[in-house]
Every structure is written in structure tokens, then in C-alpha cells.
């Protein structure tokens, strides 16, 4: 199992290195001189030149790449010229909104999807199965930002139960912050829950067709126990895969939702940084998101190994 995980971690590291090269190269070929952007249009060429030297922009590309990587490793993500503050501070501040949002959404989506999937699979072909899967089918088709607009209209504009947007920060206690995240996380979670419920159901049905289910039934085990003890664990592999993908998606999916709700999260940060060409921020956030996704993939592999002894053996 250690070897299996080391190998997966190795592949993850390789992916990360390749991704950093891609990110760096893309930023490199983009037009725009960071030094000039930082100093503004009225700066003298001498001032720009001196800042370029100071930022190391005049050094050869490989050296700058290595400098950048070296900085990342010690937590130095550079300095944003639109916010005039270290990128790492911006990320830390914004992550305090985005991370809870993604985690709440993932928890919500899992808590809805797995019971619904189990329920539908255990009542396969009956009306309740058809109805819940019909609803899931519609849920999959709903764009989350549109769903967010509808939620805002119903719960904020019409019923006035929840805030329509904005974020009070965590300074005033947990409750106001959570209240601000309710609608965004529901908007993110429901379409994801629909996907996950469908995957759970079909994975369960696939497993329920396996020979070992028949062996368990021939032992005299009732359907209910067979479903919990024999089917669910075997069905977890595809479910875990989708959950890993969804967490990655939720991190990036916040870009749109944070826009709808005016939340000061990572998504809005990077979206604004892209439109304002604040490339150092873009670079930093993108590489961080990629690293998170790579890490999640490794965690999913660990989870596979816990679920399936055949993987542990490798």
C-alpha cells in the first residue's frame, strides 16, 4: 500500500511540476510589463527599469522560473500590484470565505446525495425511484448560477429571509458569516448532489448485479443487510471519484457563485485579477488550486486503498 501511495504521490508531484511550467510559460508569453503596470503610465523609463531589476524581470527565463518556484516553497507568492500587498496574505484572507463555502457545499451535497442514491437503488423501478431520479436528472441540468439567481429572488428579495449577497466577515461571530453562506452553498450543492445521487444509485445497482451479492443472498442475508454490508462499500469507489472531482469543481465553481453573491472569496479574487491583468495574483492562485486538486486526488487514492483491499496489496 505504501508503494502504491508513493507511486500515486510521485505522479501527483510530476503533474504539479508540469502544471507549474505551464502556468509560468502562459504568464510569460502574455503581453504587459508587470513593472510598468505596477508603476502606472506616468513612470519614467528609468524607474521602470530599476523596478524590473529589483523584481528580477531582466534575468533569463529558467532562473526566474526557479526563483518563482523557490518563493512558492517558502510561502512567498510575490506581491500584487493592484492590491499592493503580498499575494499570500490576499489568499489567506480570501480562503477564509471560499474554503468554508466549498466544504459546506460538499458536506451538504454528500448528505443529500448518498441517502437519496441508496433509497432509489433499494427501491429500483418503483415510483419513488423514478421520481427521485427524475428530480436528480433535472437537478443535473440546472446551471448553478441561474439557480443562485432564483434563490436570491425567492429567499432574499421576496421572502427577505436571508441576505442577497455580501459577506460580513468572521469577526462578528460565526452566525452572520454562516448566514451569508447559506444561499451560495445551497446553489452550489444541489446540482452537485443531483450528480452524486445518480452516481451512487448506478454504482449500487452495478454492484447489486455482481455474483458475490447472490452469494450473500444465498447465505440467507436479507436485502437490506446485503445493501449496507456488501453493496455500499463496493460502490464507494465511483462515488469517491466523483466526490474528489466535485471538491475540485467546487473550489473553481465558487468563481461564478461568488460573483452572484458578491462574496470576497478566492474566486472573485482571481476573476478580478484576470480582468485587471494582475498576473502575479493569477499565477499564485492558479498554482494553489492545482496543488489542492493534486492533493485531493492523492487523498481519494488513499480512500480507495482503505475501501478496497486489492489496492492495499499493491
Amino acid at each position, binding site marked *: 500500500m505504501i508503494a502504491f501511495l508513493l507511486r500515486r504521490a510521485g505522479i501527483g508531484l510530476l503533474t504539479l511540476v508540469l502544471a507549474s511550467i505551464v502556468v509560468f510559460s502562459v504568464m510569460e508569453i502574455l503581453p504587459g510589463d508587470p513593472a510598468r503596470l505596477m508603476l502606472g503610465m506616468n513612470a519614467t523609463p528609468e524607474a521602470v527599469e530599476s523596478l524590473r531589476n529589483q523584481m528580477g524581470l531582466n534575468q533569463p527565463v529558467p532562473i526566474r522560473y526557479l526563483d518563482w518556484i523557490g518563493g512558492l516553497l517558502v510561502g512567498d507568492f510575490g506581491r500584487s500590484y493592484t492590491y499592493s500587498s503580498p499575494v499570500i496574505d490576499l489568499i489567506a484572507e480570501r480562503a477564509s470565505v471560499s474554503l468554508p463555502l466549498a466544504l459546506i457545499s460538499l458536506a451538504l451535497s454528500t448528505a443529500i446525495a448518498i441517502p437519496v442514491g441508496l433509497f432509489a437503488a433499494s427501491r429500483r423501478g418503483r415510483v419513488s425511484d423514478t421520481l427521485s431520479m427524475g428530480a436528480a436528472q433535472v437537478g443535473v441540468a440546472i446551471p448553478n448560477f441561474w439557480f443562485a439567481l432564483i434563490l436570491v429572488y425567492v429567499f432574499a428579495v421576496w421572502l427577505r429571509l436571508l441576505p442577497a449577497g455580501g459577506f460580513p466577515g468572521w469577526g462578528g461571530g460565526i452566525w452572520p458569516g454562516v448566514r451569508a453562506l447559506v444561499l451560495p452553498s445551497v446553489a452550489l450543492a444541489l446540482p452537485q448532489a443531483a450528480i452524486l445521487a445518480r452516481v451512487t444509485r448506478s454504482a449500487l445497482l452495478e454492484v447489486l448485479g455482481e*455474483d458475490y451479492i447472490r452469494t*450473500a443472498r*444465498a447465505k440467507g*442475508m436479507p436485502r437490506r443487510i446485503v445493501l449496507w454490508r456488501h453493496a455500499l462499500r463496493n460502490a464507494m469507489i465511483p462515488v469517491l471519484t466523483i466526490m474528489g472531482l466535485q471538491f475540485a469543481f467546487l473550489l473553481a465553481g465558487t468563481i461564478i457563485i461568488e460573483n452572484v453573491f458578491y462574496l470576497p472569496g478566492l474566486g472573485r479574487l482571481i476573476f478580478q485579477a484576470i480582468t485587471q491583468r494582475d498576473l502575479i495574483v493569477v499565477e499564485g492562485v492558479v498554482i494553489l488550486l492545482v496543488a489542492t486538486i493534486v492533493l485531493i486526488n492523492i487523498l481519494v487514492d488513499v480512500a480507495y486503498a482503505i475501501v478496497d*483491499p486489492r489496492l492495499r496489496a499493491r
Partner: protein
Amino acid sequence: MSLVEIEKLRLSIGDTPILNGVDLTVDKGEILGLVGESGSGKSMTALTLMRLLPQASETTGRVIFDGRDILAANEDEMCRLRGDEVGMVFQEPMTALNPVHPIGRQVAEGIRWHTGSNRADAENAARRMLDRVGLPESRFPLTRYPHELSGGQRQRVVIAIACALNPKLLIADEPTTALDVVLQKQILDLLKDLVDERGMGLLLISHDLAVVTEMADRVAIMRRGEILETGETTRTLSEQVHPYTRQLAQASMHVPQRTEKGARPRTRASSPLLSVEGVTRDYSGRRTGFLSRERPFRAVDHVSFEMGRGQSVALVGRSGCGKSTLARMILALDAPTSGDIKLKGETVIGRGEAELRPLRRDMQVVFQDPYGSFNPRHTVERLVAEPLHLLDEKPSPADRRERVAAALREVGLAPADMAKYPHEFSGGQRQRLSIARALITRPALIVADEPVSALDVSIRAQILDLFAELNSRLGVAYLFITHDLTVARAITDDVMVMHEGSIVESGRTADVLDNPRSEAARALVEAAPDLHRAMARRLVQSG
């Protein structure tokens, strides 16, 4: 009163009738062999007894187990019955166990459920049961997972699960079909011992008359959802009252007429058709770390032999002995790690696809699975004509059709069949198509990998006849890869016995199979089910 009484059992799944009035009884402590070809409804009869039928099934009739009406029982009653009073062993041991639970827990689960005993007691019972089926804890701890066991060992676990609570009836549905003959013998012996020792009734379902003859007290012959004949095993099979019983028995013992059998001169003196010289094939081991790998696995180990023109040779051995790997290398579908293979004196090793073409014209292949060996989307004409690609000059459409028609006639099919698709043919007809495809370039050698083992006995007999006839008429040489000694005996002049990658014995087929000298050959011969021998033994036993 019998343990199981089935009367006028009818079963349909959706609109398809499966069973059309089955009458069957199994007495306490009796072994009943249920024999029939594929699709006859044997498995469905067993699943009806367990009430584990597919969802859209409808049953009528009477099924009584130990005084209880099975068809009227509710799900709770069935759950109490299954695993406790009726145990079941399935055909496919590789998939019958849950991969995520250790074997001890899988055996103990049913014990705990039915007896309500605590975990420790149930595990002790499971330990004793696994020990009884030949998996002692010292070598197979309860914490082993199914993937750590071989197919034969897994089937032992399934048997342990089925027999853990001493059921009154054990149902074994083709329990050895997925295993090689040596394992088959071991598993059948185990089943017989358990049944004798515990006084269980056994419903043994099999397509193999020889297996049933060895095992069963009584036999029931089934076809198209009906029981045609039941009776005491040796009498039923020797008297053969029902024509279908006779047909089955004769097909099982069928030996094709071979005009020149034994008279064909050995061709060693002249230049051999095929020569295999010191061929070895290693597979690199599984990756275990960044740079470390498991030790390479040697599938074929320094194999050398020669075959003459028109010679029919069998390559026999247990599953996994390397015979299929060797066949693929001869066909240049896989490259040896070392050694040389020559066809008509020219090496097939290390040639590009273009350089191989003249050699490929002279060697063609017939595979085991009549369903998997055709692209379902092509017409027969296109499929059978495929090897014509090997000709240097592309034949005209008319010429191509003429050749396909000739090949189809050669194997007993009509030229009009060439416009059809493979799914329109039965298994036996597809195997004829396979042979037609192999013949179309008039090869000197056909390599046939288990060409009849997926076929029912009556079809198998016809295909063996066809092989024998083509050998006599066209002088084509065969290399038959098979685990079935009956097939080897029926249509080959010489036999080679392969064991763990090496050829351990070879010679005239009759000599080797009658007087095997190597241990591997002896094990194969002793384990091979043979209807003649089984009948003789039973007759002696019953006096």
C-alpha cells in the same frame, strides 16, 4: 417423503418461457445429477429452489422443500431457509466472493445471522469449516482477502459458506466448469466427502455427463425447460431409453472417423513444417515501487519441438501452464524473450508486419469463443475474407466472393450465408465460420486454441468431425491447444504435455495418455472426466 419435490414447475421471465413443467425430486442424502446443454433451464431450476430469480420472473406449480411450500413462502421465511437449510455453490469462483471482506468474515456472517452466536463463536465455527474444506488457518488465516486466493481456493471458501451450517440440501451449479481438470477432481472429491459425511442431499448441475456419472446416485436429463428422463445413473446412461439421452451419451464419447489415423508417416525426416527452438517468454513483474518490480514471471521456459506437414498435434496442460502464450508466439502475435520459431524454415521472429505476410498466409488460427471471435458489425463475407488481405494481389470482388463461397462449402455452410451477420448463427455454426476464415488462404498450419471447449457436447462432436475431415482431405496440420484429453485423444496423432512453462512429456497421443510417465501428465489423465471409465467404475461398484 422426499427432501425436494418439484411438480409441474413453470417459469417465465418477462414473456420468455424458461421452464415448461419440471418434475423433480431429491431425497435426503442423495446426489441428483441434473444434466443438460446450455439454455436448458438447469440453473433456473436451482435458482427457483432458492427463490433468487431475476426480477420479472413468474412461477407456477409446486416446489416443496422439507414439507414447506417454497413458492408460497415470504421473503423472511426464505432468508431463514437460505444458507441454513439450503446452501448453494456457484459456477464462477473468481467473482462469487465479496472482494472487500476477508474470507473468515464471509464464512462467519451466515453463521452469526442464522444462529445468533457471538462473533468469537461464529469465527471459531468458520475456522473449523475452512479447515475442513482444505484451507487450514496456518496457511490461510481468516483475515485473507479473496484476491489473495486462487480460483480453486476461492471455490473452497464458497463451499465452506454453503456448508457451514450443515444444510439439508446443497445445490452446486456447475461448480467446476471454470476450473481445470485437476482442480475439478479435487473440488468434486471434496463435495462428495462433505455430502457423505454430513448426510446432505446434493443437487449437482452440470453439462458434463462424465462428471455426473462419477458423482450422482440418480440423474435427470433436461432439455428446453423440461425433464426428459430421470433414473438411477448407470442404468439410465447404459440403457439410454430416451433418444436425447442416447444422443448426449454418444456425443460425449464421440471419436471422429480419421481415415489415415496412425498410418500417417512421421515426417521428422523431411524438413519440418514448424520448428520451435528454445523459446522462452518472460513477463516483467508488476511494479511495486518507483524503480522496483516483482521478479519477472516466466510463462514459457525453453520450449523446443517440431511439427511435420499434415501432422495433428495436441498441446495439453492445466490452465496457466503457458500453452496459450506459446500458441500466440507461434502465430507471431507475441514475441519470445529468447529462442527461435521457424515456419517452413523461415523465422517468424523480429519481422515487420509486411515481411510476415507470406508466413501468415501459411498459418491461421481458430479461437475458443465462437461469440468473441467475430466483429459483430461485419458481414460473414467480410469476416471470412479477412485473411485474403495477406495475398500479394488483391482479389477482385467476384473472385473474393468465389473464395468465400468455397470456404463456406468446405465447412458445411451455404454460400448464401455470406450476406448474414455473425449473430444470426448458432455457436457451432460460428465455429464453422472461424474454421472457414482460417482455411481461406489454404494454410499449411492451423493453430486452434480450445476450439471446442465453449460448445455443447453434441455440437462439439460435429466440429471435431469437421476438423478430422479437413485434416484428411486437405492435409492441413493442426496444433490443438486444449485442456480436454478427450479432444486430444479424438483427433491428434501426437501430444505434448506442458507444465509450468515447459514441455514435460511428448509422444504418440494414445501412448502418452494411456501410459503417462511424467507426474504432470499422470495428474491430468487421472483427473480427466471420462464417461467410459466412469461408467465402468460405477458398474463395478454396483456389482
